[in-house]
């Protein structure tokens, strides 16, 4: 070893101590509810109610209240489903894949990102559950014996999807809650009011922080990370099978699974930044934990993913041309230059062109710019799913079956409402649970090393 080791940049700035980390992060939960929180809830709760009202209207009237038609049988419902489930993927990526690759900088963002995953999956799950039509028959998706003697078609990607998404949600909840246990114990031990102590005490499950507990805990966490990593890749692959396993031109391609996964990570990281930058602006001391360095790294991930999907877009066009299949060629001609050309052009602008600004350090380090730029992937990833779903269906094999899709007010209000639901759940999360994983941040402090200060 050379006598001068290259020092890694410190993960926690301003020499914050363990005590400070606990008291500051818990204080967010303990202090009086801030005014901005009530104002935000004043916007998001009505939006959530709007979503619920639209869903009630949908269930009581029928799927016809949406703009779905022939030929566009999958419209905004599937677009929004893929959009939301994709957003969730960044949370699992940060918590599982960055954990396995020992990227210690993840510790200050993983909790919020995992919460984002759960809430995004909740929003996503609304769509496939309700677009089946008769919601009360949705239990037919589960392989349980029924009096009709009917069983599911296990060779259908739609059924794979049911298993993939429900497994993903269940595993994400377990992963998130396991990570929360030691932090809930911190909040429990700091509580002064009896009721809070009781509630947090029950949620902390009696955690004591003994090494005989930590060793099983760490093993469980490692296993969950190891399980979540292939899981997250499989979920969006299975979602893409909904398209790829069909015989529809423009959907029937082998590039879909990796292309969907890269897009999901791209959109998910954009959403993490969309949420974390305002959160750190509201709670300024958090900037010592979620530092400029964190933001810059996430911007680099977004840039990488943007480049991967740019490659996928080009490869799709090339494959369509090279296949020599006239239907395949037509599908991509109509995707780029058909009636939905604007969606495709805006998608290229949002997903490929604008994120290239992250090549410049200036745009990666100025938070306002970062926040503005990541809005483009947020919009672009929705447009990508819309372009895939709508352009292919509106231009089917025979011109006599061609038709356009027009969203109804119920489509628009339901989609707007899911943002309200997402934001409401997130606001509740930052109000009542520690939004940064305290014990993991403490563990990356230099004094957490049992040989700290010893001569090597």
């Amino acid at each position: 070893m050379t006598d001068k080791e290259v020092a890694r940049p410190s993960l926690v700035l301003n020499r914050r101590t363990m005590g400070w980390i606990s008291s500051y992060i818990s204080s967010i939960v303990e202090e009086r509810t801030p005014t901005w929180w009530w104002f935000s809830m004043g916007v998001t709760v009505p939006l959530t109610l709007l979503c619920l009202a639209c869903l009630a209207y949908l269930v009581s009237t029928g799927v016809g209240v949406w703009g779905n038609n022939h030929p566009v049988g999958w419209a905004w419902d599937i677009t929004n489903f893929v959009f939301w489930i994709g957003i969730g993927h960044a949370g699992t990526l940060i918590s599982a894949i960055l954990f396995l690759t020992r990227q210690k900088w993840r510790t200050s963002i993983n909790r919020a990102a995992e919460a984002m995953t759960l809430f995004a999956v909740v929003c996503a799950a609304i769509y496939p559950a309700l677009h089946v039509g008769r919601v009360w028959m949705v239990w037919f998706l589960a392989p349980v014996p029924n009096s009709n003697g009917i069983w599911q078609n296990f060779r259908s990607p739609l059924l794979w999807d049911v298993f993939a998404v429900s497994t993903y949600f269940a595993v994400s909840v377990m992963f998130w809650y396991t990570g929360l246990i030691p932090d809930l114990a911190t909040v429990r031990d700091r509580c002064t009011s009896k009721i809070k102590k009781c509630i947090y005490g029950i949620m902390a499950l009696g955690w004591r922080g003994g090494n005989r507990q930590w060793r099983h805990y760490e093993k469980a966490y490692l296993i969950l990370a190891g399980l979540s990593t292939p899981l997250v890749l499989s979920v969006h692959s299975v979602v893409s099978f909904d398209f790829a396993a069909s015989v529809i031109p423009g959907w029937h391609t082998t590039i879909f699974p990796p292309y969907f996964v890269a897009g999901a990570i791209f959109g998910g990281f954009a959403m993490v930044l969309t949420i974390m930058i305002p959160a750190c602006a509201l709670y300024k001391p958090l900037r010592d934990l979620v530092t400029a360095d964190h933001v810059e790294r996430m911007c680099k991930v977004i840039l990488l993913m943007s480049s991967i999907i740019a490659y996928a877009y080009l490869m799709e066009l090339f494959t369509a041309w090279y296949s020599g299949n006239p239907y395949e060629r037509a599908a991509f001609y109509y995707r780029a230059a058909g009636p939905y050309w604007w969606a495709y052009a805006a998608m290229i602008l949002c997903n490929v062109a604008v994120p290239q600004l992250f090549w410049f350090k200036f745009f990666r380090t100025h938070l306002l710019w970062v926040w503005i730029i990541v809005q483009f992937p947020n919009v672009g990833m929705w447009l990508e799913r819309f372009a895939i779903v709508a352009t292919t269906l509106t231009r089917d094999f025979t011109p006599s079956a061609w038709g356009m899709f027009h969203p109804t007010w119920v489509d628009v209000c339901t989609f707007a409402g899911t943002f309200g639901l997402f934001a409401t759940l997130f606001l509740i999360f930052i109000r009542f649970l520690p939004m940064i994983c305290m014990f993991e941040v403490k563990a990356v402090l230099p004094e957490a090393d049992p040989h700290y200060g010893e001569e090597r």
Partner: protein
Amino acid sequence: MRTAGNKASPVYGIAAEFSCARDLFRAAEKIRDAGFRRWDVFSPFPIDGMDEAMGMRRSLLGKIVFLGGLAGFLVAGAIQFAPTTFFYPLLVGGKPNGLFTAPAFFPILFELTILASAITAVAGMLVMNGLPRLNHALFNWDRFKKVTEDKFFVAIESGDPKFSERSVRDLLESLGGTHITTIHGD
């Protein structure tokens, strides 16, 4: 002599406080060498290498999770093969059925294996840690609240064959432990 908890109830053990991870680590090595069995160190976060310092082997959880995952895999196999082969064979375009279509069963085989493994990992971790529980003798000690914040503790249980109040107190004191306290039950 400090005590915590109800003095009328039996002694749970003797605990001491340490101020940093390094001191706790050194203390753990000494207690291990002194031959104690029923004791534990408590810290706000998992400490690197503490398992060896306490003389413990790897957690068994990995092997248990393997069994859980295997169960999930078998269940997934059964619920897919049985209906498609025997109860309700779906003939689509004269394509084969049952075992011949195994690749189509892979996604669900995979998902249920993951699901069962994850459930086993979380449930197994909780059971092996004796959780959830509502109370514990250590919670009777006020200073122990800091274990989830920034303080470190050692507790040697009275059930240990080598336990005697005198010698344990002396040992903890010699290791640099402060606020040495006898912990009673409720």
